[in-house]
């Protein structure tokens, strides 16, 4: 750790740091605007479109892409894929940061953020799916935090507390999977209350199943994608175990994701059949739906399969990026594009520059914190004192 800080002073002005700095300053200004002038001053939200990209991207995509945490820890600890062990910590960290950012972003979106604990501690609206989401996100954030603490304890040298937490690994993992199943699916189910507003091709009685199943391959793809980025930029922080296990994790997840995506494709088709929505496929909405389903589910699933068969890492990495984009597309379609499809185009929602700026700012905060933690704590390598675990 000490060696990290002894870099020459002028290296602070790297292009990365300059861009990050500018984004953070803009984000600061937007934050001030939001909390002095109101949501209306920075967003294009209106009475017909109460949810914009702060929900569609920051919340829905953020939660889906943070699914790597439960997927990886379940694979390693519950299903016994011991070789994925080196991937667990980075995945848990990303998940924790992802959820923390989701909650952070919610402070911008809701009208009175200091009341966010109300649904859990003050007035429980148990008939709402949003209550379910809120409760699970709150509990899961806690679980992720506890799961992440061993790394921090190792960094700080607190051996005894670390031992206690490590003993809880199994139960925390199972809690994590239960809570993730619940809130990932409930995020989809949020829209089941509005069949008159969401286009029939996207609306389904299976929405909660779709969201849960897609969160699995979203999480796996994100682990592969992050792995790619981390190898490019943080390779010097990885130990031999990590370097050695990383391709196995990528190929294993590629195979799993490919299979799950094919299953997802099947249940999407079943969904169309159940509601007899075939005729919509011939419309413009149908074309867009097929772009999502064939271009961003079937295609990357096949790409994953080929990459897995031929042990082609480049193909797997492309498939991962493509799948992540597909998840973003799906979540934005449901929350924004196909939502309020019945309204005239003048009443439709297009995000403002300031809304996009705030989302970029929040993602940037995430990257900065991730870099801060991985360059200091034993995330991408095992701490020499704790190798035995």
């Amino acid at each position, binding site marked *: 750790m000490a060696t990290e800080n002894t870099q020459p002073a002028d290296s602070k002005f790297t292009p990365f740091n300059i861009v990050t700095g500018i984004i953070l300053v803009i984000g600061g200004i937007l934050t001030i605007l939001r909390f002095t002038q109101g949501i209306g001053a920075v967003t294009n939200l209106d009475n017909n479109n109460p949810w914009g990209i702060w929900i569609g991207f920051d919340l829905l995509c953020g939660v889906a892409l943070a699914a790597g945490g439960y997927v990886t820890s379940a694979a390693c600890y519950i299903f016994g894929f011991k070789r994925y062990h080196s991937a667990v910590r980075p995945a848990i960290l990303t998940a924790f940061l992802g959820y923390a950012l989701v909650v952070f972003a919610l402070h911008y979106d809701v009208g*009175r*953020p200091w009341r966010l604990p109300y649904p859990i501690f003050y007035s429980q609206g148990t008939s709402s799916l949003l209550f379910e989401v809120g409760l699970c996100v709150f509990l899961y954030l806690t679980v992720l935090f506890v799961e992440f603490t061993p790394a921090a304890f190792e960094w700080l040298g607190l051996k005894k507390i670390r031992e206690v937490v490590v003993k809880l690994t199994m139960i925390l993992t199972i809690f994590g*999977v239960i809570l993730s199943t619940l809130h990932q699916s409930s995020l989809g189910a949020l829209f*089941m209350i509005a069949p008159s507003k969401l286009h029939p091709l996207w609306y389904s009685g299976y929405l909660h199943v779709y969201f849960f199943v897609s969160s699995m391959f979203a999480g796996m793809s994100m682990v592969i994608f992050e792995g790619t980025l981390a190898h490019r930029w943080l390779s010097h922080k990885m130990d031999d175990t990590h370097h050695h296990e990383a391709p196995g994790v990528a190929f294993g997840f590629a195979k799993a994701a490919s299979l799950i995506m094919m299953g997802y494709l099947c249940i999407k088709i079943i969904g169309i059949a159940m509601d007899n929505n075939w005729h919509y496929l011939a419309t413009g909405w149908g074309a867009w739906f097929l772009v999502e389903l064939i271009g961003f589910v079937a295609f990357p699933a096949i790409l994953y399969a080929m990459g897995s068969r031929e042990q082609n890492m480049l193909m797997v990495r492309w498939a991962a990026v493509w799948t992540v984009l597909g998840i973003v597309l799906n979540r934005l379609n449901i929350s924004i594009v196909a939502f309020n499809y019945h309204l005239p185009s003048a009443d439709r929602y297009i995000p403002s520059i300031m809304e996009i700026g705030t989302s970029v700012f929040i993602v940037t905060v995430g990257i900065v914190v991730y870099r801060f933690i991985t360059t200091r704590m034993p995330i991408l390598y095992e701490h020499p004192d704790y190798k035995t675990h």
Partner: protein
Amino acid sequence: MAISRRKFLGGIGAALGGAAASLGTAYGASNKHFKGHPNSFGVLHDITRCIGCRKCEEACNTVNDLPKPETSFEDLSVLDSKRRTDADIYTVVNRFNTPEPVFAKKQCNHCLEPACASACFVKAFTKTKSGAVTYNEKVCVGCRYCMVACPFEIPAYEYHKALTPSVTKCTMCFPRIIEGKLPGCVEICPKEALIFGERDKLIKAAWQRIYKFPDKYTAHVYGEHEMGGTSWLYISGDEFSKVGMREDLGIKSAPELTSGALAAVPIVVGLWPVFLTGAYAISKRKEKIAQQEKDQAVAETLANAQEEAAKKLEDLREKLNQEKASAINFEVKKALEEAAKKAEEEKQAQEAQEEEEPDQADDADGEDPSKEDE
């Protein structure tokens, strides 16, 4: 003892039965039908009677202490564009050309099973006994899920308040109706296009008008079944879709729409621990078996090796034994041969001696054959 136990069990059975019966009456089975609060109020809006004077908008503005709009309520040019409810406008009248101008009032419909209440995660909305759906600003977090949920697109949000924004919507003048007064809009309406009363009676009245003037009205009371039914009811000369009201909402109420997904939640909590711990136990057991097999294989190899070594040793021993035996045999043979040789020599020596004493030799010859016969 036996009797007392039977009595005891019987008691439990009766208690359980009683409990089940009481649960049955109090909460019902899954097909229980909820009919809404009895004798709750509603408003019937006869669209054919509305003249678009905007008096109701003005009264609403006044009784709710809302800020005055820029254009006065006398100005009917605002009817040229379609409007919806807003943060400080709880009701609007819109004009539809069908082709004759028709006016329809829009406000919260006060659903029997409100979507906003079902969606709210802090119970800010309440369907009151009176029929009005009220909003409690004191618990609202501002998530705006109620606005997403509302099929009639009614709740509005104070987007320009920085720190204390609220959701706003028509309250059916709840404070006034508990005082026994009429809602502001109903009270002021000059054409009796709005009638306040018990919802059940209003439905009957609406159908009576439809039966009485079948040519004047379309045979549909909007709100009787839409989204599970609403406290506000509408009758119209034209199809409702032509006066800005959606006819494709269906009759399922909001809580029914989400009940399936909500019901999945406790089942996941109940069964996931079983499946996951099961999967964990299976993978751990597999590991253990693999380990055992490995150990066994190692042990077997070891055992085989030992056996082989033992066999080799045995072979060696046998070989040695054989050698030893043959050596003994050889020695024995050798000894025998030697002995035979010695005997021969002795015999020859004897014969030589006998030749010297022939009489003795004859006796010996005569005796010998008889000895061999024996």
